[in-house]
């Protein structure tokens, strides 16, 4: 009894979440999302929906093309492919995650995880070792000098 109630609750949550997910994902949201993933082809180096050049011969036309493609019911991939075919790969505001361009996406996270892993390893390795003696601890004279220097130069 309890198990079936739990299952029903989970189903209800899943349905609600799906409904919420699909809410507002209409053409306006897609237009906004795709328009921010494309660059204006006029050479201004601005995202399509942010191009603010008066009389820009590209941005209005490209927005119309995007709007038409969405009304036609094209999928996101198809829309982006059509733009790439027409304007070249530089029309995409970010490199596609394919071929060599995949390196662009992988590298920062690879560096991030390697760095974190490296740091954890270093800390664990240092933790295992006995605390290192101060470099000059074997020389009392030098240690005294160091202490004096610290005292005298402390701001």
């Amino acid at each position, binding site marked *: 009894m309890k198990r079936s109630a739990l299952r029903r609750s989970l189903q209800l949550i899943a349905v609600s979440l799906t409904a*919420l997910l699909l809410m507002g994902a209409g053409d306006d949201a897609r237009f906004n999302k795709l328009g921010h993933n494309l660059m204006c082809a006029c050479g201004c*180096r601005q995202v399509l929906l942010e191009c603010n050049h008066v009389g820009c011969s590209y941005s209005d036309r490209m927005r119309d093309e995007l709007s038409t493609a969405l009304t036609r019911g094209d999928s996101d991939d198809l829309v982006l492919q059509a733009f790439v075919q027409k304007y070249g790969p530089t029309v995409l505001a970010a490199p596609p995650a394919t071929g060599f361009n995949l390196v662009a996406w992988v590298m920062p996270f690879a560096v991030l995880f390697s*760095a974190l892993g490296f740091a954890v390893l270093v*800390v664990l390795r240092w*933790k295992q070792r006995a605390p290192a003696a101060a470099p000059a601890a074997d020389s009392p004279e030098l240690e005294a000098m160091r202490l004096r220097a610290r005292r005298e*130069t*402390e701001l």
Partner: protein
Amino acid sequence: MPQFGSFALLLALAFGVYALGAGIFALLRPGPAADRLGESARRAGIAVFVAVTAASVALVVAAFQDDFSVAYIFHHSNRDLPLPYKFSALWSGQEGSLLFWAWLLSAYGFVLLLRHKVDPRLVAHAAVVLSAVQVFFLMLVNFAAHPFAMMSGPAPADGNGLNPLLQYPEMVIHPPMLYLGYVGMTVPFAFALGALIMKYPGEKWIHITRRWTMVTWLFLTCGIFLGGHWAYSVLGWGGYWGWDPVENASLLPWLTGTAFLHSVMMQEKRGMLKMWNMWLIFATFLLCIFGTFLTRSGVVSSVHAFAQSSIGTWFVSFLALTFAVCVFFFLRNRVYLKSENRLESLISRESSFLFNNLLFLVACFAVLWGTLFPVLSEWVQGTKATVGAPFFNRVMIPIGLLLLLLTGVAPLLAWRKTSLESLKRNFTIPALAAVATAVALMVGGMRPWQDVSYFYALMAIALAVFVAVTVGAEFLRGGRVIRSHTGMNLAAAMVQLTRRNTRRYGGYIVHFGVVVLFIGFAGYAFNQDQEQELGLGDKMNIGRYTLVSRSYTRDFQPNYESDYAILDVYRNGTFLETMYPERRFYTASQQDATIVANRSTWREDLYVVYAGRNPETDRPIIRAHLNPLVVWVWAGVYIVVFGTLVALVPNLQVAAVKARATAAELATVAAGSREGGD
């Protein structure tokens, strides 16, 4: 005047070369003769400042006098340009900005050399490093990008004018601030390299370096902020940060500089990370030079880079040489940088600093990687990939959120090792506050599962609350202790607490500023925009607002012509105000520029741009953006600046001791004078 300027620049180079050569000789062969040589090198360094100042004044005077026989003035000024912008022409172009760089560097050098008694030998080493950098920039302005190059043929009657985008009040102060940060990083670099070369005994050099870094980091922060604010107010695309290569170039040294300001505490308190800190300083300086190279060489295209030129080769050579010098002295003297302690636990203040540093460096790498990837992809694939805001947002936001989390966690961890009990005690309330905030936001209508940007926004606000609670708890805890000892009220006790340890509590204020900044960034996920042709009396709706076109008008100024849209703004049917977005046409340069009308509140900005007229219908086009929480971004930066200033003020006790010591010295001197029969 151009001849005078050219002569002053040559003289500056001669003094610079002498200061470098004599400085090196004086350090290599210590003795009375070397002391005299060293002193003459110091004075030559001061003379460099005088000569570069004279050259800079000559260029400004040439701009004020409309001397269009000077090519630089012809290209960056015109007769009708207002005086403040004629002054800012000094740093508006390639040659002038390099001269400005050389002047700032000489000014920093001047301050350094005047304060040489702080530690004569360390300053002598630092001055040699500074002179070497100075000589490089003086060579650039003398031989590669001469600001006093003359026009061929007779002087033109008028100039081309200043780029319209630069004719905005903030542009008079944004570049100097940025340059103060960029150039200023040379000073910590000079101290660090100087200390490494001479194997400086003691820790004084790291204190000096930290203070200089903090000052120049502050300038860099202000410069980046002003640049963002200028972009928001002038460029008219509705945002303040576009991940443009030039913006990225300013962020790179800021990230490594921030990492240094954190890890330096490990060196001061535990004698750890000495090599790491040395390389952070080196990297920060090298990234400043690299950023300058990116901006000026044409390697990457940018909306606000300088004209493409051949000086890239100079910068690459200088970068390679500087890197080689750093590596050489590091390998030679690295024993001197041996760590005095080791990390003892994963959960400790030291570890948190280590992770914080790694995250800053990964962020720096990601920005650099994204900026240079187009060049790399062209090299490998033959086509240049575009790496724009979507890439940087996807990569940088998770790193930023991790950093925000550490901002809250790190101050609560103890040095050496933190117990589980202490973790529970310190983290329960902040963590509960963060979870409660996330739940409240979802109940309030935020749907993090609908879009990843909403998820990030939710995380940013929840983590911001987590950090704010930890910062608040730190102030409260310390304030209560002081209140119990002194009986003063809690607010006064917290002020007293801050004054007693300005560095620590100034740092917390900076962290609080970062919290406010992140809340502002979270608003970006909910931006809306709307564009519409708006004839007289037409209406346009965006969010809660309605814009009604009342009229369009035109105005003529000596330097430009203006088109204004006059729009009445209503919120839920109630009239609020009239807005005047403007479009300017600069006659000298024949270029357009927008002046945005912005209605800013803590909740949102109503940002209106007059985008011009439709060429087919001749109807005016209005673009409106509704940008939530942007004011929080500016407020966050103000708090960061305030916190940094607090951290730069000496602690109350130290200041009091110094004041007592000075008073005692004065009393002794006065007594001595009286005894002497005064």
